Each structure stands twice: as structure tokens, then as C-alpha cells.
């Protein structure tokens, strides 16, 4: 709603572009990118309200429409300034900031936004649990009020960056006797606090992109609570919104990514079998159709024409990535049975997915992470096509009484 009124305002005042460009010029002259350390530059960028243009002034923004930020980043990149912080602190800057902007007190925003943007404090997200995967709202990590503090016990999984994060966005169960969606509360937890135990979670490639995080009597001050007690699900939804958009939304050049790699392998091996060729062309066609679909979706979205084109990306790419990488291994024939880099357990190396074998293994998770394909198909069927939901046995029960096997 707040965004709404902002964008209306910005439509009225055409002076906004000018103001933005003037501020960017100021920033660049006062802090020349080539001579200014990134962290210092990002701090200055925040102070000028050029971090999240749609945030209120004083909180890294100018109270303008979101589109202005795109412009700002273009100008900064053109001037050789780094926007790497958006990648280095992805979960904070892309998701955490949105959560704080929508749900936090000014005091909380003041405390957290600036060091988040400067990457001095890395953020992570603590939602999934061993017992709560697709059903995040079934989570069991307990938080119990004790004076001005909350005492947290439980386990979270699939947490990226937890091993280098200072702050974690955590959803907890504060009222087990309320229906599952109503008994949750959202906190920002200090990942360096006593009782927080972060362990690498090794995946089938032997690498650990993710972590398990254990909470044993971890104390969180009540002022680190986001929004009301019991409002945790509402805040969690705000967070998840941003997540799924991120996946499969971007549009890539034709013949890039896994299908590009498959074509490379086809050429490198000099394979010319007609059957494999048709299979490669089939996958290429599927990938190109998916690519054109996301380009079309982005165009229609920015033209304000609503449509289903956007919702299919993650699902489609999950299946395609799995098929393409599996086929690429097949293309290698006997060499497809090899795994040059071996399996010693480690944190991931970048660019490892060039190896067909590793890409084949890693992509098995594409249909699971960030929403399983089964859940995405439900969403597509129910939200986009308007098909009725299934009978729910868990919705109105007190969480404590929901069957969990």
C-alpha cells in the first residue's frame, strides 16, 4: 500500500530523475569509486538515500518509486562503482531490507540497514526445519518469553551464509496452542550469540553450500522482535515473496547456461549420432521456449499486463536443468562415468558446474530448493488457474495437535 502511494507521488513529480542524478553525481565526486574502499563507498551511498530509493529518507532511501533504483545502479556501474554488495549480502539486501522496511520500527531500521548495505554485517534466513520443508508454517523451533528476552530452542536447515552471517531472520513458534499460522513470531537473531551452533550441511556433490543451525537456549532481546508477537507468518510471507521471484525470473542469452554447455560438449566430443542430436535439439527447443517465455513475461509485467507467463519459470527450469545436465553426462559416454574433481567434503568452489557430472548432481535439488515442484504446481493450479485447494486437515487445529507422524 505504502509503495502504491509512493509510486503515485513519483509519477506526479518528474523532478525525481533530476534529483537522483544530482545525488549520484555528488556521491561520485565526494567518493570517487576508484579511490574509495567499497565499504566506505556503500556507506556514503546509503547516507545519500541511494541504497533503496523507495525507502523513506534517512533509511537508505528517498521515498521514490522502485524503478529509480535501477537507474541509480546503472549510473553507478557506469561510473565504475561496485554493486557487489547486493550479491555479497544477497539475503540481507534483497530480502532482509524489504522485511525491515515493511515491518520494523525506525529504531530497528536505523540499527540494521546501514551495516547490512555496507556488508559489514552479513544476513541469513532461518525458516526451513527438518520437520518443516514445504510446510514452513509447521515449524517447531520454540521461543519462550523470559523477562525482556526470548529463549530459543530448535534446529533450522538449508541456511546459506549462516557460517559468515552476523544476523539471522528467524521465525519461531511462540504459541503452540494457536492454529499453525497464528502462533509464530519473527526475530532478528545474533548469529554470534551463545548457543548458536552452525554446521556445514554437505550435499550429494560433497560440497556444503548450506548449513544446519542449532539453537540451544539462545537469548534474543525483545527489541529484536519484528512486528507483533504472533505476527511471524505475515512477516515470513513478505520474506518468501522476494525469494521465489529471484529464482528463474531473470532472462539469459540464447543458448547459455546448461544448454550452452551441452552444445559445447556435443561439439567437443564431435558426437554426430542422429538420435542424440534430436534429443539435444529437443532440449535446446525447450530451453529456448522457456527463455522466450521469461522475456515475454518480463515485457508484459513491465507493460503492466498481468499474466501467467511469470509463474512458470522456476518449475520449467528445474525440470530442464535436470534433463539437460543428465543428457550432457550421457553425451560423454564412458567419460560420463568419471568425476574428475572427486568428492572430498568442502565448501563450494565457484564455477564447478562446468563439470557435467557435478552439474548433473547439483541440479537434482533444483526441483526441491526454494519450493518443491509439487508445491509450485499447486500454486500454479490454485493461484493462476483458480483450481480448488485440497481438503486441509491442519489449518484450524492448534499447532500442537497437528499430526506430524
Amino acid at each position, binding site marked *: 500500500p505504502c509503495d502504491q502511494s509512493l509510486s503515485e507521488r513519483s509519477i506526479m513529480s518528474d523532478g525525481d530523475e533530476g534529483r537522483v542524478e544530482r545525488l549520484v553525481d555528488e556521491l561520485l565526486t565526494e567518493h570517487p569509486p576508484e579511490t574509495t574502499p567499497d565499504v566506505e563507498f556503500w556507506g556514503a551511498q546509503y547516507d545519500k538515500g541511494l541504497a533503496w530509493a523507495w525507502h523513506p529518507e534517512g533509511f537508505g532511501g528517498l521515498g521514490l518509486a522502485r524503478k529509480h533504483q535501477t537507474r541509480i545502479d546503472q549510473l553507478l556501474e557506469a561510473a565504475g562503482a561496485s554493486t557487489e554488495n547486493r550479491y555479497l549480502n544477497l539475503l540481507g539486501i534483497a530480502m532482509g531490507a524489504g522485511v525491515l522496511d515493511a515491518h520494523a520500527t525506525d529504531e530497528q531500521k536505523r540499527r540494521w540497514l546501514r551495516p547490512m548495505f555496507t556488508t559489514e554485517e552479513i544476513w541469513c534466513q532461518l525458516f526451513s526445519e527438518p520437520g518443516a520443508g514445504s510446510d514452513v508454517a509447521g515449524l517447531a523451533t520454540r521461543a519462550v518469553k523470559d523477562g525482556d528476552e526470548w529463549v530459543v530452542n530448535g534446529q533450522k536447515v538449508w541456511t546459506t551464509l549462516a557460517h559468515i552471517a552476523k544476523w539471522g531472520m528467524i521465525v519461531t513458534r511462540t504459541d503452540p496452542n494457536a492454529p499453525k499460522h497464528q502462533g509464530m513470531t519473527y526475530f532478528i537473531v545474533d548469529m554470534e550469540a551463545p548457543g548458536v551452533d552452525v554446521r556445514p550441511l554437505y550435499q550429494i556433490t560433497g560440497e556444503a553450500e548450506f548449513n544446519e543451525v542449532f539453537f540451544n537456549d539462545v537469548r534474543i532481546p525483545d527489541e529484536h522482535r519484528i512486528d507483533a508477537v504472533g505476527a511471524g507468518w505475515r512477516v515470513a510471507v513478505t520474506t518468501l515473496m522476494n525469494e521465489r521471484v529471484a529464482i528463474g525470473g531473470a*532472462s539469459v*542469452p*540464447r*543458448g547459455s547456461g546448461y544448454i550452452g554447455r551441452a*552444445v559445447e560438449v*556435443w561439439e567437443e566430443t564431435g558426437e554426430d549420432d542422429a538420435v542424440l*542430436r*534430436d534429443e*539435444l*535439439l*529437443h532440449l*535446446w*527447443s*525447450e530451453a*529456448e*521456449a*522457456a527463455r*522466450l*517465455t521469461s*522475456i*515475454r513475461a518480463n*515485457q*508484459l509485467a513491465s*507493460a503492466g*499486463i498481468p499474466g*501467467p*507467463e511469470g509463474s*512458470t519459470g522456476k*518449475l*520449467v527450469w528445474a525440470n530442464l536443468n535436470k534433463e539437460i545436465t543428465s543428457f550432457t553426462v550421457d553425451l560423454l559416454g564412458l567419460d560420463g562415468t568419471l568425476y574428475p574433481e572427486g568428492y572430498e567434503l568442502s565448501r563450494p568452489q565457484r564455477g564447478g558446474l562446468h563439470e557435467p557430472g557435478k552439474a548433473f548432481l547439483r541440479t537434482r535439488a533444483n526441483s526441491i530448493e526454494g519450493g518443491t515442484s*509439487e508445491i509450485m*504446481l*499447486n500454486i*500454479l*493450479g*490454485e493461484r*493462476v*488457474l*483458480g*483450481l*480448488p*485447494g*485440497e*481438503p486441509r486437515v491442519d489449518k484450524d487445529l492448534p499447532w500442537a495437535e497437528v499430526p506430524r507422524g
Partner: protein
Amino acid sequence: MVDANVSYAPTEDQELIRTTARQFIEERVGLERVRELMMSEDGFDRGLWKEMADLGWPGLAISEEHGGAGLGPVEMSVLLEEMGRLVTPGPFFASAVVATIAIQQAAIPEKQDRLLPTLASGETIATLAVFEEPRGWGLAPSLTKAQPSGDSWTVTGAKRAVLDGHLADLLLVTASTGDGVGLFAIDSDANGLTISQESTLDPTRRQATVTLEGVDGASRLDDGDMTESLRRTMSLATAALAAEQVGGAQRCMEMAVDYAKSRYQFGRPIGSYQAIKHRCANMLMKVEHAKSTAYHAARVTQDDAELAVAAPLAGSVCSEAYVWVAGENIQVHGGIGFTWEHDAHLYLKRAKASSLLLGSPRHQRDLLGRAIGI
């Protein structure tokens, strides 16, 4: 990169064409009429054709100097999508699309001046006779030969899968001239010409087999070898057919989704079961992919290199999507979807036949491979 300058958002004119077309087809054609026509001898309604002509549809993509509306392939694809939605019968695709494209691509200016106006007005129904072998979709005429005699030509040979050949006033026949491929205009009443209608899997789009025994007075339309323009003609026809396939596939998905909401078994709408819900979601994905490839192909017709990629891409993706969605639509409907009285089968038959008409998906992928160097 071609992406940058292709815009997929429909213009107001295109939206207008869509609205008018949908309204006309629903009101004046409609599936009841489709059923009458599909069981009729020639599957053709001259009155309906006249009405379409009055709307300027046959000339939609013909230049104004030739009496057409001077619109392009994108506008035509919108119209075809709407026609596909109701498996509209009749020679529109054969005459206003394929034959018209062939003349535009291959004929020399004065021949275009002679032929296009009556095609634009709908007075003449034309069709392209190109295929000879049952399989392979080869474009080089091997059976059909043309020899000059005076200022016209004599054509001998045989063609198959000539769309609506039994309705055509004018046949456009490809024949080998010894030094390449020529395109020849032959009146349907010419001596030595036999046109026999075949019974088709898709009763809403008819075909004929054509034999030519020393047919005199054939007028050559191209100047020299038309191999290249024939290839381009088939690409454009494939792109156009893809738009029609999208319309049919979209309609099948809508039928399935509507039925899944209203049909109850075991006290629940069947659409609340994941088996049906997820199938419908997969229909949506396939239809969206089909649209993306068809819309793209219609928008890059000016770029030969890109068209050589986009057309077979759309041809294979839309064919497979339509056949699949039309089949699954029957499954979602269960028994009723297998009955003659239900409309589901009209789409299945149109889908299956369309997937073979201009080249199977496998054949289209072969063309795609040549275009992208795989």
C-alpha cells in the same frame, strides 16, 4: 541479439483484431456450425467465406496496392490464433495464408499484380501443391516436371496433401524445370488436371490429391529457381500454423480447467486432486511456451536468419504442445471427452493432423539444427 528489439506486448490494433475475430467466429461460425461443415461433402460454406471476405480477412496480409489491408504476419497470427480457438473450417489457411505467402515470396511483380487482388477480395481461392512423397516433407519436386510450350508451360506429375485442393480455383504447383524449381499457376478446370478430395483425420481441414497429365497453359510465376523463396514460404507457413495451434491449445486448456472446477467426484471438484491440478498446471506451461515461440516467430519474419531458427522452433514446440494438451483435455474430461457429441475430439484431430501437415516436430527440429549449426 535479436531479443532486444522484439516486442511481444500486443498493440491496440492487434487487440482490436482479436476482439473482432473472436466475436465473429463465436457468433457466425461457432462449434455447431463447425460440426455441420465437418460432416458435409466439401466442408465449405461459401456464405461464411463471403462474410470473412467482407471483413477483409483474406487480404489482411496483402498490401493495400493489391487491395489488401496491408497488415503484417503479427496481425495475421492474431487472426489465426482466434480461428484455431474454434477449429474454424474452410480454405482460409490454404488460400489466404499459404498460397498468398507463396505468391508474395516467389512471384515476380506483374504476376503478383495479377493474382493478389482476387485473393485479397476472396474471389479466388488458391492453394499451394508442393508435397509429393508421403514422408520427409521434401520440397524439391521429383515427380512433377514443367516444360515450356510457347509463352506458357506444360506440367506433368502428382502432388499430395494439397490443402483444400477440392475448393481451389487456382493451384500453385511446384515443378522442376530442369534448371531448378518453378512455381506454376494452374486453373482448377484445366485439362489433364485431376483433383480428388481425400478423407482426412481432421475433418475440419480437408486435403486433395492432385495429378497432372500434360496440363497446358500453366503460367510460371517466379523468375528462375524458387528453391530459396519456397523454403521461406514454408517457414512463414509454419510460423502461421503455429499461431493457429496456439489458439487451439489455449482453448483445450480452458476447457480442461473449466471442467476440472465444475466436475465433482467423491464429493470434491476433480480439479482439487493433484493428478488433475498438476496436469492442468503442466498444460498452462506448455501453452505459454507454445505462445512464446509462435509470437516470436511472427515477429521476426523480416530477419531471414532468425526466421530460419524461429519458425521450426515454433513448429515443433507448438505441434507437440497442442497434441499433448488436446489429448490430456480428453483425459481430464474422462468418458464424456471421448464422445462424438463433446468438442474435445475436434481439437485432438486438428492438433494431430496439424503436427504433420508441414513437417513433423522431428523434421522441424532437423531444420532447426541446420539453422543453429547443430
